[in-house]
């Protein structure tokens, strides 16, 4: 029986998947000589950063009990938009800003149709995924936007205080989002709407506005991810972001935010994204070819989740549910 009288049940908020992360780290540390080094950890963080930001975009919408399938396309489009503007002589910071605005607008498009028109979120974001992808291809005529100057590259490739800027950006966003989701009314409302839209409505929360704003935020985050990606690879391909939506969903689910929404959160997703990045890093260090990597990643993801699910079941059983 849960002690309902005087448990502060705070420790329960540590996502169980943390153990999955530790397990993966341990295994790779023991079996590959190059894994457990400071350099490699920085390397992993750097590699995870973009996925982390993209996954946050996904997590917010999943917390709402919805989804955003258009994240990858938004990444491609914002990267391309920013890149084209830089090449057309716009100052870098304005281009970056406008790229983020583009992300926000696309998020707004999704959010408007879902919240104010009441359309199904799967269908809307799935459609916009195709539409936005097409836009990116059309405005570049399919070609990659070539390299940039050093000021733009600083975002994705520079370093500050000995740390990659990209890691600092991802960390900053993480802290902001943790604060936003756990300490502000907006964040609380996101969880509530995810828990039940009707209950939230009955509590006087403007659920439409919350959904709308969350999709804008998701668009902004996807936009940032796309821009940072363009900076990191020093070019903007119109298909750069495709496929990220599935990795982002995987990171979110591994991190313990279920599709039903209303629970889980940013920290779990951070861990989920790190697990994915570490897996890819470790398997590269082993030198496995893609066929083997494919098989192993599938197995490991499922294994981690199975352990997590069984652990939950065990806990539930212990408490007599």
């Amino acid at each position, binding site marked *: 029986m849960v002690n309902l009288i005087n448990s502060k049940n705070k420790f329960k908020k540590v996502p169980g998947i943390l153990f999955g992360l530790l397990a993966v780290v341990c295994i790779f540390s023991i079996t590959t000589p190059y894994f457990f080094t400071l350099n490699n950890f920085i390397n992993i963080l750097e590699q995870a950063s973009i996925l982390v930001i993209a996954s946050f975009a996904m997590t917010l919408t999943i917390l709402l009990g919805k989804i955003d399938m258009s994240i990858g396309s938004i990444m491609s489009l914002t990267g391309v938009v920013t890149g084209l503007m830089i090449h057309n002589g716009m100052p870098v910071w304005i281009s970056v800003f406008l790229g983020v605005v583009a992300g926000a607008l696309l998020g707004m498009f999704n959010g408007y149709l879902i919240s104010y028109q009441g359309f199904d979120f799967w269908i809307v974001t*799935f*459609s916009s*995924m*195709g539409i936005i992808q097409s836009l990116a291809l059309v405005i570049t005529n399919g070609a990659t936007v070539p390299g940039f100057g050093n000021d733009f590259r600083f975002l994705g490739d520079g370093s500050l205080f000995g740390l990659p800027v990209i890691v600092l950006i991802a960390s900053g966003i993480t802290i902001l989002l943790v604060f936003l989701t756990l300490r502000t009314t907006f964040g609380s409302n996101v969880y509530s709407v995810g828990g039940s839209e009707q209950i939230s409505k009955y509590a006087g929360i403007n659920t439409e506005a919350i959904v709308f704003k969350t999709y804008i935020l998701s668009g902004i985050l996807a936009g940032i991810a796309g821009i940072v990606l363009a900076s990191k690879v020093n070019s903007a391909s119109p298909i750069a972001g495709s496929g990220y939506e599935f990795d982002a969903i995987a990171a979110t689910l*591994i991190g313990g935010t279920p599709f039903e929404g209303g629970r889980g959160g940013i920290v779990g997703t951070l861990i989920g994204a790190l697990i994915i990045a570490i897996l890819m890093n470790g398997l590269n260090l082993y030198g496995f070819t893609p066929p083997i990597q*494919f098989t192993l990643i*599938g197995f490991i*993801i*499922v294994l981690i989740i199975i352990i997590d699910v069984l652990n939950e079941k065990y806990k539930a059983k212990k408490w007599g549910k």
Partner: protein
Amino acid sequence: MASNNIKLLIKYARFFILILLFSGFSLLSPHFLTFQNQMNILAQAALLSMVSYGMTLAIVTGGIDLSMGSVLALSSCIAASFLKSGNIIGGILIGLIIGFLCGSINGLSITKIGLSPFIATYGMDWVARGLAYVYMGGTQIYGFSAVFRFLGSGQFLGVPALIYEMAIMTIVLVFVTYKTIYGRNIYATGSNKTATRLSGVNTDKIIISIYSINGLLSAIVGLLYISRLNAAEAVIGTDFTLNSIAATLIGGTPFSGGEGGVAQTFIGAVIMTLLTNGMNILGISSYWQNAVVGFVILFSLFIEKTGKVLSEKRFESVSKTSINA
């Protein structure tokens, strides 16, 4: 009368879009409305629609199956090596068994372990694809016997074999889902699993069987696919997953489960194929194709919503008069 029309409009919104597209393309291009081209469209829709039926079944039960494309690849690659050695029956059987097994594993990990369908099938997607790569080692198997090739590229009475196969599959699945106990239980499970289980239905069995059927469908489509193309390799079928989700959504089966169905998905698959065909014929840049599909989906949402609003208005005024009377 008018209210009936509007109700019909909502119910068949997707169908009207199909007709709209059909008439549009017919007007825009003289090459569209030929017997040959219509046969083309249906034959092209065949494989997509069959995979989409599986996706639809998973979605109706409240799940999703992201592994269909990869299971298709794995089963048909392994089958191909048998087919190549001349053992047609054996090859087909092996392919079906592998598909079925992959699907059953999905179903078991969803029901018995309690994984979310997304994760279970996402994992299977990686694994099956990986195994297909490992098995093929980057090679291709090509050149099958004429008998086997008939399945995917033959013609009978001037109509491609694929169209017959699609017709049979559609009829069987429509019948099973709308007319049998099993079908009823699929919908019940999707609409409320607990209540259905508490009505004495073994919902785990329903879900396992659905994913197993999906595996089987993937394998069938895989076999037809390699028969049609006369070659098998590990990459095949990657687009099927997203396209089948698109066909299901265009058809109007919602992700919430318990609603929609195979017949709607048939319309969805035909709309998708028609779009590509029409755009190819009109020479519209391939860059636009995704956008057009997206806009068509959104457009159908608007039609549906407008229809609903209109019909509710009518409904209300009708009920008002009846209450006052």
